């Protein structure tokens, strides 16, 4: 249970409490279906439940952004454990330590942006919960990590919500300048081996040693376009 309820949650509980009193009183007394009764029932069956639904949905949406929510499923323990590890230097951990991401780092990085981004992200999340309930709840973490993959590549736009890629500091990095077109097209992922590293590197194959890269081509983009596994 969360230690503090959001305002929307309080609204939902308050509306639900008042509506429940109205409905229970009706069920006990069973008055005649007069105009007055109809109006009370309209309040208890339409107006107040609408407040409960709106408040409950908003509270649910907020709750589903929390790292603790993602970590509720055992198959996410490794990802959340790494992200919350103060000693980890992975992209996920470094971003989770940032106050701007706070306890919502999974959502902030993985949410699609744009007008319908939240809706599509939530629909995708529903898909995850469905898959979990359908079968993955019985799968061990090791098997899960070996099997899962991202449904679609992580778009660089998600990184560029904060790292705009337009200031001098960013443009001053030779690799950025050389790979700008590929980055814009999504052919190279910011979070890939050879660039900034995988966001969740603990279940990835080790990156090739620097000597394996052709000499004199530090800006050569890696062949794998995106992070293939979460």
């Amino acid at each position, binding site marked *: 249970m969360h230690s503090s309820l959001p305002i929307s949650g309080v609204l939902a*509980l308050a509306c639900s409490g008042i509506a429940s009193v109205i409905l229970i009183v009706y*069920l006990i007394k069973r008055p005649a279906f007069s105009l007055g009764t*109809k109006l009370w029932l309209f309040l208890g069956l339409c107006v107040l439940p609408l407040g409960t639904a709106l408040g409950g949905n908003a509270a649910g949406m907020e709750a589903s952004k929390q790292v603790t929510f993602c970590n509720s499923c055992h198959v996410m323990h490794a990802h959340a454990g790494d992200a919350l590890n103060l000693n980890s230097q992975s992209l996920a951990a470094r971003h989770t330590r940032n106050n701007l991401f706070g306890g919502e780092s999974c959502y902030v990085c993985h949410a699609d942006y744009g007008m319908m981004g939240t809706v599509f992200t939530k629909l995708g999340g529903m898909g995850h919960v469905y898959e979990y309930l359908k079968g993955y709840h019985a799968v061990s973490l090791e098997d899960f990590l070996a099997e899962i993959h991202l449904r679609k590549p992580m778009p660089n736009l998600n990184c560029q919500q904060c790292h705009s890629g337009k200031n001098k500091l960013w443009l001053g990095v030779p690799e950025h300048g050389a790979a700008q077109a590929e980055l814009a097209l999504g052919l190279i992922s910011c979070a890939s081996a050879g660039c900034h590293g995988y966001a969740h590197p603990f279940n990835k194959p080790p990156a090739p040693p620097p000597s394996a890269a052709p000499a004199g081509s530090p800006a050569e983009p890696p062949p794998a376009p995106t992070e293939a596994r979460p």
Partner: protein
Amino acid sequence: MTDLDALPDGKIAQAARRVGSQKLVLASCVLGLIAMAMMCWSVLDPRPFPVLVAMSAGQGIGTLSLLCYLSAVFVEVWRLRNKR
């Protein structure tokens, strides 16, 4: 001709006529309480399963509850109009 014969002959209207407004309101109250209990559960215990239940089954049952109530009101309105 009875009062209820004045109702439309659609399947939903026939079903509402058979059940009667009192039972419809009773069902509406029970369904409403169940739906609100689900939503409160998701607020108090925001884990994936309660949230999923509230946003799917809870919403569905709540909508069904409202439809039962509206059906009861329409049955009553048609019945009273037919009496005049």
